[in-house]
């Protein structure tokens, strides 16, 4: 198991986890989101190639109403 910091909260996931796996487990596959890993953008096209590691800090963001 690995522990990730996801949007500021600790969450535990199975050990071998790609960004694509994470997005799928969160129910966001095909949704308009953006992913940041340890301060760097993970391009959507690269989700399958990025393996997440213990302690990674992840931000998943969406568009909301704002002025």
């Amino acid at each position, binding site marked *: 198991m690995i522990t990730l910091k*996801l*949007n*500021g*909260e600790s*969450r535990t996931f199975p050990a071998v986890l790609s960004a694509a796996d994470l997005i799928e487990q*969160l*129910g*966001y596959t095909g*949704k*308009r*989101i*953006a*992913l*940041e890993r340890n*301060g760097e*953008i993970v*391009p*959507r096209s690269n989700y399958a190639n990025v393996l997440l590691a213990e302690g990674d800090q992840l*931000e*998943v*963001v*969406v*568009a*909301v*109403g*704002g*002025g």
Partner: protein
Amino acid sequence: MNDKLIIAGKSYDSRLLVGTGKYKDFTETKNAIETSGAEIITIAIRRSNIGQHPNEPSLLEILPPSKYTLLPNTAGCYTADDAVRTLRLARELLDGHSLVKLEVLGDPQSLYPNVIETIAAAKTLVAEGFQVMVYTSDDPIIAKQLEDIGCVAIMPLASLIGSGMGILNPWNLQLIMDRVSVPVIVDAGVGTASDAAIAMELGCAGVLMNTAIAGAQQPVLMAKAMKQAVEAGRSAYLAGRMPKKLYSASPSSPTAGIITSTRA
């Protein structure tokens, strides 16, 4: 009449830019924004609610990027770093879209811009290829610096965000317009239609507002009023107003041929 608003080489028919926050629900959001006629609409970037309703409708489903020019903002950012990070995420979210609204705030009570952090963020963003429309104070020197950095529109406040206090310092807006050649768009402080008309009569290229519409008793009707006010103000600016005089001794009706009881 060919009177387009041109920002970063793209032309727009509407000079009213609107925010998408503070509406009762998505239906009201959609109706108000459609009624406003705005083509450029601001959005915010926020953490998703992990684990909560991933299938609920999203803002971008009711306001699709195919129909509107989305302008992601950095509302809530107090440092250049946070603002830059937010807009990098926005660019990824919107498939490489580079037109953004930069705002870096100074304190949570006034929401007054922190121009030092704003300038730092603008430099980084322009270097990274963003087209930056920048919210700032009504300081003409700062406005000019932001243009020199490469911002594509300067967006001074008319009064504080969400205050609805209207155009408090038209003279500073004039000073900015005299010095800056990119579009100057009043952002923040408009309260009602006459405020928007005044901004446009001053010669501003456009007006950006959110609370003035969303916070009205009837937002959709206010959206209509704002559309009309921006158009009316723009036409008045282009028409060129008559000079102000305390009195004129020049009546509108002919002075010759007046019937009179005076006998020569």
